[in-house]
């Protein structure tokens, strides 16, 4: 099963003062970062985000009207369509919702405050990691911390056994720094369990989540273009009232259920 392992006795203090503390620190760091982000976030819900949400939801409503409008009576459908695409009316407030001008999006690279925000976000992720790596390098280098239960090739020795100059030592014995890397990737899942999906403990996962959302429109997209496309779609949408003959259909079912099954079979 396992390659004959060389019995290597490690001091139990390494377990108590290196292995377990690193995991705990990594775990708590994520939780602290999550809560700090939450605290800062409450200030950032601004007018711009609210407007963006309004635009997104309105667009969604137009799409729903297009998809399910056939269940509305012709008058109701026309009223809703007018709400979105009415062309005349002079002043901006009477125009259809999709006809109103939206402000052009600012170039994110041109706006220094947004650049700073991005930079700050990155910093809040990078700086703690660097501090912890420094901490581990300073205190816990030069000895074996644990053994990974899977074989590694000799190439890993240089990376994972830095500071341990033992050429014959199996590569699966690793230093505390590699234990740190394992912890970095592993605690991500634990944070999901404790803090819930979409937590701010791990920045990279957050990014993925943002990309997958799609509900709030990307601020760099020109909403005028999107609205124009949706307006054209809505104009092209031909309203066919699905329930026009509903009374007849209902009576048909009544008569079908009244007649016997044999006659129904004959019909088909």
């Amino acid at each position, binding site marked *: *099963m*396992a*390659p004959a392992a060389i019995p290597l006795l*490690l001091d*139990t203090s*390494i*377990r108590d003062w290196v*292995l377990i503390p690193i*995991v705990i620190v990594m775990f708590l760091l994520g939780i602290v970062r999550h809560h700090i982000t939450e605290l800062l976030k409450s200030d950032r819900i601004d007018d711009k985000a609210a407007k963006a949400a309004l635009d997104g939801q309105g667009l969604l409503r137009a799409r729903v009207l297009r*998809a399910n409008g*056939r269940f509305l009576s012709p008058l109701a459908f026309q009223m809703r369509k007018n709400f979105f695409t009415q062309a005349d009316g002079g002043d901006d407030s009477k125009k259809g919702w999709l006809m109103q001008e939206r402000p052009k999006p600012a170039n994110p690279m041109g706006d220094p405050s947004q650049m700073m925000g991005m930079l700050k976000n990155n910093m809040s992720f990078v700086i703690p990691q660097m501090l912890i790596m420094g901490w581990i390098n300073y205190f816990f280098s030069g000895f074996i911390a*644990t*053994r*990974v*239960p*899977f*074989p590694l090739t000799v190439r890993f020795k240089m990376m994972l056994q830095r500071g341990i100059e033992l050429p014959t030592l199996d590569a699966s014995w690793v230093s505390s720094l590699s*234990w740190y890397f*394992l*912890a970095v*990737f*592993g*605690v*991500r*899942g*634990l944070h*999901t*369990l404790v803090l819930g*999906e*979409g937590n701010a403990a791990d920045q990279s996962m957050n990014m993925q989540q943002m990309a*997958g959302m*799609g*509900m709030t429109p990307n601020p760099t997209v020109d909403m005028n273009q999107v609205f124009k496309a949706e307006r054209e779609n809505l104009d092209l949408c031909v309203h*066919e009232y*699905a329930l026009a003959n509903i009374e007849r*259909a209902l009576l*048909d*079912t009544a008569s*079908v259920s009244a007649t016997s099954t044999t006659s129904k079979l004959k019909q088909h």
Partner: protein
Amino acid sequence: MAAPAAPGNAGNGAAEEVERFDATSMRFNTAVIGRIRTGAAVISGSTAGILGLTGLYGFGFYFVASLLLSLLLFVKAKRNVAAHFSSPSAITTDGLFDGLSTYVLLWTFMYGMVHVY
């Protein structure tokens, strides 16, 4: 858009049925699957570490455990995966590799606790 089929001839209406889904519920389902997978990875990782599995046996154990979990999810979904997810493979593949890193951490940790020290 296909008109809803008249009650008398439901047969040909089914072919024109448009697939509808609720994006919020689907995201929620995927998130739940991810959480279950992580939880299973924690448990199976600790198990593998305590048992002292090494090398390929350990990785194999993860995939066997995941497969078992997928089966349980399949039963939980009342054998109708399409009703809850857009792709039929969602319950087997979603979050499989996110769980792996958690598994490796717990596996190494428990292995170290029990078999190294």
